[in-house]
């Protein structure tokens, strides 16, 4: 049994509450990894559509890892995806950005007060980064942030095309460029059961990560709040590109979780000291 598994076994007392959060015309599926007196609260903004499925187990384990260490976590499904309701074809990046703000507000209002960390992976990094840029959250943790939503979609598309090609021979095989061309010419594309519209593809170019979040240095000078940016390598699959779905999900991610937990704890501790100092004056 790995150290992480032992830890999880020891933490059966942790409470996880699944629920539906009502937004305009839909219900967001949420799971709160509840902590009684949290050192911090973290909103986990996961990746898009089919990547949600591929990263599900590691992200649930990450949430449990943090909750076992006094960080309360709220994870959720994008509107129109997974357990959340809503019609994917009708939704826009702005809808998903709004969901981040609504859930952040809900989490920040929980009692007792604790610093709020926004944490995104892939497209979730763009959503979390934009929310942070607009003033939401006390700290920001980004895993593999793309420069814009299109990069996230493109990465998903490339992985899917790779899978598709397993079943095709010779001229039947289509390249990523072929699929992109079709999308740009107005044909929707089904990617692992999700229909991508031309509108979604076109909008994705304009849905960008704030330039100040390109690296930690520029973020440090732009915001007076802690920001950490980690680019995950293929050893982090399925959280990053590479590996095999269904086989890499269950591996031990303690090497990734531990340092990021430490960073969150330190950011929260600094924030709490500043708050205490301000209250003292």
């Amino acid at each position, binding site marked *: *049994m790995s150290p992480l*598994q032992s830890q*999880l*076994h020891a933490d*059966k007392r942790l409470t*996880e*509450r*699944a*629920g*539906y*959060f*009502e937004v305009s015309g839909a*219900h967001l599926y*949420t*799971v*709160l990894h509840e902590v009684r007196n949290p050192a911090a609260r973290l909103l986990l903004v996961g990746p898009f559509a*089919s990547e*949600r*499925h591929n990263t*599900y*187990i590691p992200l*649930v384990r990450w949430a449990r890892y943090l909750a076992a260490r006094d960080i309360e976590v709220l994870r959720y499904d994008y509107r129109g*995806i*997974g*357990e959340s*309701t809503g019609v994917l074809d009708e939704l826009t990046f702005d809808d998903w950005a709004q969901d981040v703000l609504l859930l952040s507000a809900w989490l920040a209002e929980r009692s007792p007060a604790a610093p709020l960390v926004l944490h995104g992976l892939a497209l979730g990094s763009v959503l979390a980064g934009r929310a942070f840029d607009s003033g939401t959250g006390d700290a920001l943790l980004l895993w593999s942030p793309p420069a814009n939503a299109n990069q996230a979609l493109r990465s998903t598309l490339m992985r899917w095309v790779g899978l598709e*090609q*397993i*079943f*095709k*021979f*010779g001229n039947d*095989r289509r390249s990523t460029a072929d699929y992109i061309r079709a999308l740009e010419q107005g044909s929707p594309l*089904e990617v*692992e*059961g*999700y*229909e991508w519209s031309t509108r979604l593809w076109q909008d994705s170019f304009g849905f960008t990560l704030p330039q100040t979040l390109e690296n930690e240095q520029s973020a440090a000078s732009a915001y007076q709040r802690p920001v950490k940016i980690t680019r995950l390598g293929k050893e982090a699959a399925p959280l990053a590109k590479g590996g*095999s*779905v*269904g*086989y890499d*999900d*269950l*591996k031990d991610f303690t090497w990734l979780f531990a340092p990021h937990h430490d960073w969150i704890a330190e950011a929260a501790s600094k924030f709490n000291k500043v708050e205490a100092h301000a209250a003292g004056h």
Partner: protein
Amino acid sequence: MQQATETRELIEVEVLGHRLRGTFHRPAGLGTRGVGEQRTAVLFLNSLALPRAATGDSAIYWAASFAEHGYPAFRFDLQGLGDSDGETSTDLLDFINAGGYAPSAAALAKELTARDGISGVVIAGHCAGSVTAVFAAASCRECNGLILMDPYFHLPVAKRPEVREKLSDWVRRSSVGKMLSNLYDRAKLLRLILRGSTLPGNANVALLGRWKNVAAAGLPILMFKAPGIKATGSKPRLGEFDYIQHVLKLAGRKSRVTVKTVATADHSFANRAGRDAVRREIENWLACNFPPQGSESSAHTASLSSAKTRHSDSTKPSMPPSSRDCALEGR
């Protein structure tokens, strides 16, 4: 936060010391058939490590549709998967192929059947989920039927060597590779002929045994096949052992097995055309085998049409969605 929407409810069930989390799709007309009404529910299991929504949220789509047609539908994460508690083996595929999830799935079926208005469950599984479904059905009196999507009856290698992957990729890309691949298939066919009806060395004998138990006992089973690599219909690729034919033979004359090939689907059945075809087939099959209470004519039709093994042609997407004609089953 709410626990339910108009049609869905989040539920937790304690099974064999693990808290399993799932979604219940409330059936239409619940409570309108009077006190003591009993319905057969559909229970979806995880496909390998996928969460209970399944690829492209296809399981949600199917569950919602069956509920609309009056069948309670449950989607659950087994232990260590999705949102459920517990750990699972790091050799997940081997664990599943050995029936590792069967005790949980069977206990879950029992737990759900103990609920008001549920007379039993049809267990639905895709790929590795179908292996669990068969194992669970063999050890579970509450299982009224099985829906198996692209089941396999051998012991696949979890991860092929990288060299093999690269070779396969080259074969698929080049015309010479294709030619060599065809030659390889013919060599395999020759070996297959020489071996006769002997099972391949990597057959999942334990699973085949459980299959024989449940299928020969007359459990209604609906099996879907998606076109495989270099394969047509439900037939395997040239040179590969025909497991479908084998399991139909094992099932015997009294079995109630229906095989449907969904020509428009990929292996996940999550693409639009594939999932629609699957939905229509399952709805017809449910109506025939588990007619809503009080529908005597349907029950009669079902008993007439389902008492033999059927092996159908491909499912075409043009089939009328509203069709509930059980005669379709015998095509």
